[in-house]
Structures are given as C-alpha cells and as structure tokens.
C-alpha cells in the first residue's frame, strides 16, 4: 500500500498517520490533511469519472470546489450516502468509502462510451430535432432512454440519518474567504474592536498561502505569517473564524447565507452531532475576498485523464506533497504555469516542455524557467493529445502553422489565467465591469454595503492582495489599514479566453469547455450558426455552464468564442447571471431542524391528553390536532359517530372547542370597528348578548364566521374558525392600521388563553348548573345567544349559551390551564346523564342536520352571504363594511343563476353521497356536462335514520322540489332538492 506519487517531505499532511480508504472497491492509503483527490493522485489514480454525455474517461482537473470531473459518491451506507461530491473537497478519513459515477460496469470499461464513438450524431441540442415520431414514443420510449443516460450519481434510497442545525448571527464585518486578502481584512477590522466573522470553504484558513513556499510576509515565511495571523485573530474575543464554511448566497440587505460542514470530514461519527449548520448572517458590511479560479485552455482533446490545471498541480505538490505525474507538459497563456513547472522540476518531475500561446512572454517566472533550462515553445499551441485512460502525449504546433511535434508525457498542465470569483458580488446585484486587459469581469459599483478585495477584485500580486484586503477591512470597520512588507513573490500575469488556435478540421476535433456536460467549442459555434446570439441562449442550447460547477470554468471561454464570431466585444454579449448557491448545499441544511414533529408545530388543546387517554382518533385541522371521534371497543368511525350523535340529541355530549380562534376586541370604538369589519350590525347588541357574525373579503365573499359576545360596552369576545384565527387577526390589524387608524381599538389574540368546552344536549343545563357560582343559567335568565361571566367549578369563566348542534347548549370559556380540570368536573357532573364526549365528525353531522354552514366546506371563497341564505344578517343601515361595495356589483345585484345552499335527499335513504360530487339535470348528456352544483357536506344522519346532504346549486332555492342527479362512480344517484334544514327547523330545541 505505497503511495508512489507521494513525496517524502513537504506539504501540510501528517505522514505519521496513515488512513485507509477505498475507491470503487479498491483500497488505498493516504494521510490526515489529504483530500480524496490528493490521496488518489498520491496513489497514481487519475481516472476518476466519466462525463455526462459522451462518457469520456476523465481525471482530476482542479484542486477545489469548481471540479467538474472528479465527482464521486461517498458514504458508508445508503443512509449516509451523498452523490456528486467533488473528490477535491472531500477530506480524507480512515475508512472512507467512495465510488465513481455514470459508468457501467466499471470506470475502465463503460458501455456508455458507445456515445463517444457516435459523438457526431449528438451535437448540442440534437434532441430538439428528433424523437418526434411516432407521437407517443417520446414519453414511452425515447425519454426514458435519455433519462437513464443522463444524471450523474445515484440518489440515496434510504432516509438520511443525519441531523442539521441552523443559526442566526449579526456582525459588523463579514469577510468571505480566508486567503491573504481575507485575513488582512479580518485583522484590520478586528483591530477596531468590530465584531468580525471570517469564513472559508476549506478545511484550513490560508487560501493561497497554504501552497506558498517562497514568499515572505513581514520577514516571515508565508506559512509562519499565516500562523501568527490566525493566532492574532484567535486572540480577539469578538472574532469568529469559520472553516469548512461556504458563503453560498447573498440576499437583500446584507444577509449572507453560510453553509458550515461539521462532521463530514470525521467519517463514522454518531448521528447525534449535527452534520452541518446553515447560518443566516446579517452583516453591517461584507468584504468579499473569495479569490480567483483558474481557467482551462480549450484545445482538441483537452480532457484526458492526466490533464490538469497548472495551479491545481502546484497545490497538490506544495500542500499535499503529491506529484501529479512523472513527465509533465505545460500549456499556458499565464506565467503561473511556469511557476508550477519550476516547482515540479525541483521536485523531480520531468518537464516535457512549456507551450505558451503568447509570442513573447516575459517576466520573472519565465526568466526563471529559461534559467532552469526548461524547453519553452512560445507562440505555440497544442493540436491534439493522445492516450485513452491517461494522457500519453501531445502534439505541439506553432500558431503560425508548420509541422507538429509530438512529445510524450503522462501529465498535461494548463492555464488560461484566472477568473475572479465575483459570484457573491454579482448575487448582491453589484454591477460587473469588463476589464479588457485582464479579460475578466471585475466588481464595479456595489449594490449593498460590501467591497471586494484580493484576486476576487483582479488584484495581481501578493503584496497588493494583502494591501487591498487590509484596506477593505479597515474601511469596513472604520479603522486604518496596516501595510505589509512582502518579498520573494513575483507577480504572475497573462491569460486567454476562448478556443485556442488549433490546426486541422474544426469539424473533426473536440475541444471541451464544459467538461462535465461535454460542451465543445464546436457546440458553441453550432448554437451561433443556429441563430443563438445571446449568451443565455447559447448556454441553454448547449448546456454550457449548467453543470454542477455552474460555469465557473467554462463561462469566460464561451464568451471568448462568441465574441469574434458575433463581432461584438465580450461586455456587449454579457455574462450569465450568477445565482445562489455558490457551490451546491445539501437540502438538509436548508430544512434544518424542521423534520417530523418539528416540521410544523403540533398544536394541542388543554384537553388533548384526556382525549388521547380515551383512545380518541385525531384529525389535523390547520396546525391543531382535534379529536375526530371517540371509539368504544371495536367501533369504527361510523358506529362511534352514530352513538355520539344519539347521545347529544337524546342526553348530553361534551366537545372540546378550544381550537376556535378567539380575539379580544377592546376599546371605545370596538363596536364601530366590528360594524366596519363584519356584515352584521353591532351597535345595538347589548352587553351579555351573543351574535353570529360573518366576515367577508373585500371582494364580497365569505372568509370567516363565528359567534361574537359583547362583554361590556367596550369589550367583545370574537370567535373565528379554527383555521382562520391568524388570518382574521391579521386582516383586522391590517384594516385597523391602514384603513381605520382613527378608531380607538386594541386587538389581542386569546386563542390559547381559553379552553372552550361545549356541553350540548337536552340534559346540558343539568350537567352545567351544579358547577356554576355567581350566575343564574336558567332558560329565562340566560336565553339562547346570551352570555354571563361566572365561576364554574371554582374557575372564572365566560359562559356562552350557544349551540352548533341545534340542542340546548353551552360553550364554557375558562383559562386554558384549568381546561382539563373543568372538563373532568363536567364529566363527573354529567355521569348520571351518561355524558358522552364527541368529536369533530359528530359535530359536523349535527350541524349539517341543522343546515349550519362550515366556512371552507359550504364556502370556498366564491360564496356570498346571500348564497348561503344569510343575506338577512347584513346590517342594512350600516354605511359600510368590508365587502359591501363588492356585493353591489353587477353579478351579485342581478342574482341570476348563482349557486345557493340547499339540502339534498337521495331517493335511496341509505346512500351517502360523496362530498365533492357534482349535480346535473341530465346524467346522460355528453361531456362536458352542464354541472349545476356540487355536494358540500354529506353524512349519515343517525337522528333521521337516513342520509342528508348540503349542496351549492345553481338557482338552488328556486329548485326546491326538483329532482336532479349526482353521477357517482357507482352510478347516477337521484336526489330531491329540499331546504337546507333537516332537523327542528323551528329551533324549539335550541331554546329549551
């Protein structure tokens, strides 16, 4: 288990410890400090993946988050498995298990590579031009085939075992990127006492300093300076350094999203620790010091394993002590690659030559390479490369033409220069400005309180990078910049965008821009030939920039290809918009704590635990759990509900109504406020009286209802539907603050403050009365629709004489903490009458027998008060109320053909219609049928010994007596239209 490409010294890995890991079932070793990519390279493994479309063999291209090729699946088991991770970012741990993707049966022999043989038939956008015949074949045949070919890794099939955390933070200065610019910025800001957060996506802070053997800062070797800088930062209590933390999104008002990986690098950790944490940081100022990303050169066959970015190779060498190969050819338009060549040369790697696109590159790095005797080919290009699973050589040609020269190599290192990481700045809506000398978009005028420093701003040398960081940090915190003395860090310059000149038939070569999506220079040309002239069209047509690196490597080269063809400068073509996230972020980070019970709070009433102990079956009503029925023994819902209904109609039932929304409306103008909100008139309602209120939206449709009690002249107890509580309060506040600010009214939600117990049935008073002190609740003293404040079982209560069942009834409001005690007292008091707890289902049946509507069931946002027969409740004398003007509109004023609430009785009394079924006059008519209405409520009525239904029916009230049909899956049911009250229409029982 040797690591043949590992150097014996150097780098930031810990050679004292050896870690074992596997890739595609083969075992290898590495060291702490390695990434999966560096460890694979140390073992001589370059072939790590297959591309998306052509299944080309691919190697490790980069050393960072922009990696397009080396995507792997990692995880000990399916519950810990993540596809598409970049091997360049996966930190090595002992026992790490990884696999390659998009290949079958193996990386070396992949059937999908047949696409590569027939590549000519699959140009960009080929699928738009074919697979159209026969019509059904697309969905049934072609699309499934295409889908199987597409996709990279495999999704896990087992629920994720990990937990996730989230945090909010505020700071004075957030610094993104802990390279030299970010460190200098953080130091300068911290010195002023500012609260600083410094984050970096890598495992260690330092950025480019982690691979910097030469430069000296303030007399210290870069690595030493880094140590002191970090020690200084650590000494500030108000500075937080977050590593493994990616600033992934820039949101309005300087809100930055950070994704912090917590345990992935530790391997087999218990799932008790959160795996990652999402931060939402609100920063006074942001300094973006996110560095720059090296660009590939676009030349024929530039994608073989062993072809790598030059700076990445230098990082593998300096940071991980790994040689990318034994014989490297360099292809560049930037001086940095000379530095790589020199470093590799020193480390014992043969340099097959340095091919430079530029005719007369100069500067210190070029001079040093010349001095070291490296073969340099100026004004030259690479016409092709060879090798199948690993590059074996390349053909060098002068740009001017002439004969080519093949040189052999096992590694080709390229550099097209660097693209500043302006992603976050662009996300913040800052303007980008094209710099033609750098061939790069640079940050221009910011849109938020932020600045950009270091190579992210196109700053070239280490000295200037440190200076720009210090200046940005000081400016952000209102301090003064320090200056740094930098020696032995010569500037590296150059760059190229577009496809490099190559010789030969452009139709027969493939030069890749977007490696993962297999987009070639030819595809870009094809898109333009087909009339795609906007960069966005080219992107979408070719999929360039739509791979998992989101164009970090390919966008500038695409612009470089388009510009000469369209005859427009790059800025006139524009760049595609940068969007969050900067690099992919697991869904779990966003979902955070919200899972299972914490997904949404479960609201439970004070009586919930009692109902649970009785074996109640619950239903979800908005966030509440409500007891739906209380089965006894082996009863099903039907039987239980029948029994509960009988109990209420003949004896007494008890019902937990606590979930009803409650709003305390208080103030000298409370009655006037309700006059303006509800359709009803409130001025004349006496204290101690109740009234059923209807609330409309501005458009005249019923949105809520509820009983409202006047406690005193200036105090109302308003109830709302369970689901409507928050909505109604918000609506009231909205009107109060924006429409009626002159009214002297206060609104307070009291939903949770009261437990509400309904006691209903002919025996109700017998149950309640013995527990009451301080009030007379006889029929004379407390008639239907009145209320009194008193004590029940010693607990202060608002006692409402009200009924949603049609029986004599009380609704008892007590402080929630006493809810269960009062409930149990009522149960005890009701024992002689066999008091029966009932649930929402029974409540629904009983109210339907009476024709009482449920908002959301009889109404659906298209129903006016008149539609449900409640027009009489409208306070006619009122100058205005919400929705009044809308009710005067033509469609309502004419009142023709509106759907109205009716009752329906089936010919077959045992048939319970399906709710939602529709009503027609002639079930034999062809489709589309003329529908007259639909069933809103439908139940078996135990009381009546038959089924009953409520419906909204066109011109319904005029159709009383008509016979109509309800087509069901089981056949057409004939129904008769009746009034929507099936039980005690005179209301004698209510008033008992």
């Amino acid at each position: 288990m040797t690591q043949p490409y590992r150097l014996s010294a150097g780098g930031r890995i810990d050679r004292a410890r050896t870690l074992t890991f596997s890739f595609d079932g083969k075992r290898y070793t590495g060291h702490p400090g390695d990434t999966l990519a560096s460890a694979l390279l140390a073992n001589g493994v370059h072939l790590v993946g297959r591309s998306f479309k052509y299944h080309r063999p691919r190697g490790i291209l980069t050393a960072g988050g922009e990696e397009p090729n080396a995507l792997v699946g990692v995880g000990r088991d399916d519950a810990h498995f993540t596809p598409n991770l970049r091997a360049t970012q996966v930190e090595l741990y002992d026992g790490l298990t990884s696999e390659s993707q998009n290949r079958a049966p193996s990386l070396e022999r992949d059937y999908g590579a047949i696409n590569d043989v027939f590549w000519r038939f699959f140009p960009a956008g080929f699928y738009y031009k074919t697979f159209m015949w026969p019509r059904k074949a697309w969905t049934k045949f072609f699309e499934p085939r295409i889908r199987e070919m597409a996709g990279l890794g495999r999704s896990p099939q087992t629920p994720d075992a990990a937990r996730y955390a989230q945090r909010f933070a505020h700071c004075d200065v957030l610094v993104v990127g802990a390279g030299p610019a970010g460190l200098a910025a953080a130091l300068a800001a911290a010195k002023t006492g500012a609260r600083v957060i410094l984050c970096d996506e890598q495992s260690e802070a330092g950025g480019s300093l982690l691979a910097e053997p030469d430069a000296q800062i303030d007399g210290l070797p870069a690595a030493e300076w880094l140590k002191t800088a970090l020690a200084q930062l650590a000494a500030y209590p108000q500075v937080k350094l977050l590593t493994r933390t990616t600033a992934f999104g820039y949101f309005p008002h300087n809100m930055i999203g950070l994704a912090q990986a917590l345990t992935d690098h530790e391997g087999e950790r218990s799932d008790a620790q959160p795996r990652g944490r999402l931060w939402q940081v609100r920063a006074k100022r942001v300094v973006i010091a996110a560095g720059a990303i090296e660009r590939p050169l676009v030349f024929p066959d530039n994608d073989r394993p062993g072809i790598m970015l030059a700076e990445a190779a230098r990082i593998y060498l300096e940071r991980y002590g790994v040689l990318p190969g034994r014989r490297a050819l360099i292809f560049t338009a930037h001086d940095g690659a000379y530095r790589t060549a020199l470093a590799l040369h020193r480390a014992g790697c043969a340099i097959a030559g340095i091919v430079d696109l530029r005719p007369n590159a100069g500067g210190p790095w070029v001079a040093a390479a010349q001095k070291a005797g490296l073969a340099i080919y100026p004004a030259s290009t690479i016409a092709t490369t060879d090798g199948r699973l690993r590059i074996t050589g390349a053909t060098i040609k002068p740009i001017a033409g002439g004969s080519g020269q093949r040189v052999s190599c096992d590694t080709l290192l390229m550099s097209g220069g660097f693209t500043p990481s302006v992603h976050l700045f662009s996300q913040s809506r800052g303007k980008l400005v094209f710099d033609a000398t750098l061939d790069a978009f640079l940050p221009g005028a910011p849109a938020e309180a932020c600045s950009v420093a270091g190579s992210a701003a196109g700053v070239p040398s280490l000295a200037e990078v440190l200076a720009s960081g210090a200046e940005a940090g000081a400016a952000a915190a209102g301090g003064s910049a320090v200056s740094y003395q930098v020696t032995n860090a010569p500037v590296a310059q150059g760059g190229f965008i577009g496809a490099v000149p190559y010789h030969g038939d452009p139709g027969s070569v493939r030069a890749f821009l977007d490696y993962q999506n297999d987009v070639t220079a030819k595809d870009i040309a094809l898109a333009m030939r087909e009339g795609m002239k906007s960069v966005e069209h080219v992107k979408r047509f070719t999929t360039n920039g739509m791979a998992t690196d989101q164009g970090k490597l390919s966008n500038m080269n695409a612009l470089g290809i388009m510009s000469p063809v369209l005859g427009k400068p790059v800025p006139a073509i524009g760049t595609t918009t940068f969007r969050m996230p900067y690099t992919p972020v697991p869904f779990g980070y966003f979902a955070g704590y919200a899972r299972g019970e914490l997904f949404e709070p479960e609201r439970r009433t004070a009586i919930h635990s009692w109902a649970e102990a009785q074996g109640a079956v619950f239903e979800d009503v908005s966030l509440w759990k409500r007891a739906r029925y209380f089965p006894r023994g082996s009863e099903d819902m039907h039987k239980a509900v029948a029994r509960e209904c009988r109990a209420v109609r003949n004896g007494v039932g008890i019902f937990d109504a606590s979930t009803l929304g409650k709003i305390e409306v208080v103030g000298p103008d409370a009655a006037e406020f309700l006059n303006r909100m509800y359709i009803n008139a409130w001025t004349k309602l006496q204290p101690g009286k109740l009234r059923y209120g209807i609330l409309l939206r501005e458009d005249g449709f019923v949105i809520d209802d509820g009983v409202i009690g006047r406690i005193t002249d200036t105090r109302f107890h308003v109830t709302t539907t369970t689901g409507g509580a928050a909505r109604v309060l918000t609506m009231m506040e909205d009107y109060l603050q924006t429409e009626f600010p002159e009214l002297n009214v206060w609104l307070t939600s009291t939903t949770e403050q009261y437990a509400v117990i309904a006691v209903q049935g002919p025996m109700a008073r017998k149950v309640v009365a013995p527990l009451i002190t301080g009030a007379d609740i006889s029929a004379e003293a407390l008639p239907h629709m009145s209320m009194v404040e008193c004590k029940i079982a010693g607990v202060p209560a608002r006692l409402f004489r009200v009924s949603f069942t049609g029986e004599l009834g009380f609704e008892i409001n007590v402080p929630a903490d006493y809810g269960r005690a009062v409930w149990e007292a009522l149960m005890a008091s009701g024992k002689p009458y066999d008091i029966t707890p009932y649930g929402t289902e029974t409540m629904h049946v009983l109210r339907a027998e009476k024709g009482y509507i449920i908002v959301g069931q009889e109404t659906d946002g298209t129903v006016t008060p008149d539609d449900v027969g409640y027009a009489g409740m409208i306070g006619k004398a009122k100058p205005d109320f919400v929705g009044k003007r809308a009710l005067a509109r033509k469609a309502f004023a004419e009142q023709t053909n509106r759907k109205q609430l009716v009752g329906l009785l089936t010919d077959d009394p045992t048939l319970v219609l399906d709710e939602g079924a529709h009503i027609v006059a002639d079930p034999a008519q062809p489709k589309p049928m003329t529908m007259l209405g639909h069933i809103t409520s439908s139940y078996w009525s135990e009381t009546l010994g038959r089924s009953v239904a409520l419906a909204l029916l066109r011109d319904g009230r005029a159709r009383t007596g008509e016979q109509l049909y309800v087509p069901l899956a089981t056949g057409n049911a004939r129904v008769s239209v009746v009034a929507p009250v099936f039980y005690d229409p005179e209301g004698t029982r209510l008033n008992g």
Partner: protein
Amino acid sequence: MQRYSALALIKQSLNGHKGWKPQWRDPEPKSSYDVIIIGGGGHGLGAAYYLAKKHGIRNVAVLEKGWIGGGNTGRNTTIIRSNYLFDESAALYDHALQMWEGLSQDLNYNVMFSQRGVLMVAHNVHDEQSFKRHVYANRLNGVDNEWLTPEQAKAFCPPLNIAPGMRHAVTGAALQRRAGTARHDAVAWGYARGADALGVDIIQNCEVTGIERDATGRVTGVQTTRGRIGARKIGVSAAGSTSLVMEMAGLRMPLESYPLQALVSEPVKPIFPCVVMSNTIHAYISQSDKGELVIGAGTDSYVSYSQRGALHIPMHTLEAICELFPIFRRMRMMRNWGGIVDVTPDRSPILGKTPVPGLYVNCGWGTGGFKATPGSADLLAYTIAKDEPHPINAPFNLERFGAGRLIDEAAAAAVAH
C-alpha cells in the same frame, strides 16, 4: 423552414453540422406592422405563430426587451396539467393540454412534452374534500383525474413517504395521467422558428417604452429602445411586466407582481417518475431529463419587480420536500432562481380585449401559465385576428373584476402551478 428529423440529423452529422440554418432571423424592425406582440415569451411567440398560421396575418413582429424565452417561460418548473375546478378553467387548460399533445409535431420541434402524470397529495380531510371535488368536476368535464389511496400513490411514485407517523401523513392523492412536463426553452424556440418561417419578425433587445394612440384612443404604434414602430393592433403578453406595459396605454391592471422562486438539485440517475405537488405542506417536485430534481413552491410574500427572492422561501420549500421525501435530504441544491409572476385577484388569467381599441392583453397567469402556453397563444391570436374573444377565453375578460364574475381557482386549491 429547414425540417428537423432523425434523417436530417444524420445527414448533418456527416458534414460536421455545417448546414444547419438559423432557427430564426435577426431582422431590423420594419417601420410598421399589422400586429405587434409585446413580450417574446412562449405566449407571445406562440400568438405570433398562430396569427400567421391560422389567421394568415403574417406582417407581425414580436418585440422582446431581452432574449426570447428569458422571462418566466425560461424560468418555470414546467408543470402541465388541466385538472382545474371550474368549467371555464377546465375548458381553457384542457384546450392547451390537447394542443400540447401534438405540439412537437406541429412545430417540427421536440418540446419534450412528457405525460408522466401529476400527483397532488392530500394530507387531511379538507384536502380530500377539495381534491375529490376536483376529480368529480373534471370527470364530468371530460378531463382525466382520478383519486388514489396512499398505497396507490406510493406505487405510482415510489419515493413518496406515506408513513402514517408523518407530521402530515399522506391520506390520498389525485392523479392526472395526461399531465406532465415539457422543455421550456424548446417551447419558446420552437414557436420562434415556426413563426419566423411564416414571416414573423422576432426582434430581441427591443424594449417597448411607450404605446402611441390617436385622437380616438386607438393604438397606432409603440416606442421602443430601437425606435418607433407602427402597429394597427398590439397584443401585450408581458407576464410580470404587464402592469408596466399597460400603464403606457393608460390602463391600470388588477395585477400584483411577485417573485416566484424555484431550484434544482445536482443531477442524479432516474429516481422520480412523475410530478408530485402538495398544497398543505406546500412544495412540488419532479425530475428533469438531465436528472436534476426540479423544486418549487409559492411566491415570495412581498410584491416586487426584482427577479430575486428571499432565503426563507426556499428554506421552507426544502423543509417540505425533505418531509415528503426524506431520501432527498442529502441531495444538494445546485441552482436557485426567481421570476416575476403577475397575479390577479382570482388567480385566473386575463385574456381578451381592453378598453383601448386595438390593444389586447394576455396576462395574469401568475404561477401557472406555462401549461397554458399553446392554448393561450392560440386564443390570443384568435382574439386579435377577430377583434373578439373566442368562447373559451370570453369568461376571462378584464371586466369580470368590476362585475364580480370571478373564476376563483385559488379558493379551491391554494397552489396554482
């Protein structure tokens, strides 16, 4: 028009694909047109295509301020279905669905219309009541929609979590099998190519900045960033910007514009066979042919014209997705974006004439107009050509808000995609 086919593809493959022609020209605007369509989204391009194809009106320009398809057409999550509740809506959306079924062939452009089925999951009694009402109404309207038990839903969509212990357990689902998805860009491009071939000028980077009218109030042309262009009739199909464009003709529209966000994961091998939507936990998901999970939910809370939303919206969306599909919790968000959607008070579109003679409008599709593209384009073309609405779009007039004849789909189903 250069025909596309497998054979053409093979032929071109043998000559390096050098013979492909531009899919549409890039003409300079003429001084005037019979009809100008403002907005080069799917709806506008399609309307131009049908004007030329069905009504013989070929002196037509589509003016697009950016690049065609760059508005909501190129930003949406492409859910196509027609199982709307009300008769008017069912007729409108099913008209579109029927056109989708032959669109690739009609345009000779594969728009990848994939009838993989849309499953709307119910989580409580209220959902069930509402979905069943849809199922019943759809059946009688001749629109397919069926009710599934949780087990049937799981069989149709294996990744669905139907565990009863869930916070919002799945209690059933409504399935429209003819529903599905399509490739959004291809819709814009296919219409552009088809319209161009019939003589329509597609003019990009041409923002309309003013609408000219004569003394009678009738439209006479537009001012644009590329100069004045005359027009006898103008159709506005500008989605999120409609209120701004209509203001140029002095009309205030009953529209509010909101950002609507969507996101995709990194691509994975096929795992998700259909489209799943949940109103109650508020999210929807499908998998693109590239392998990305395509995910969305509701609009942002505040009106805005900036194509950019707040972070808490995708957070809530992913909470919901992870709850319904806990196997996706480790999948990673690759890209998030927003579009501006134009929302009417009743969540139904406005498609018809306006009080300004010669000015027609198609808007208010809000979060769910991609599915209507062929239908709405067809009906807009009809309305412009005949100067009167087709019976299908007649109810979707601008006057309905004043008159109170709303078609309130939102009332019965909160999510309108």
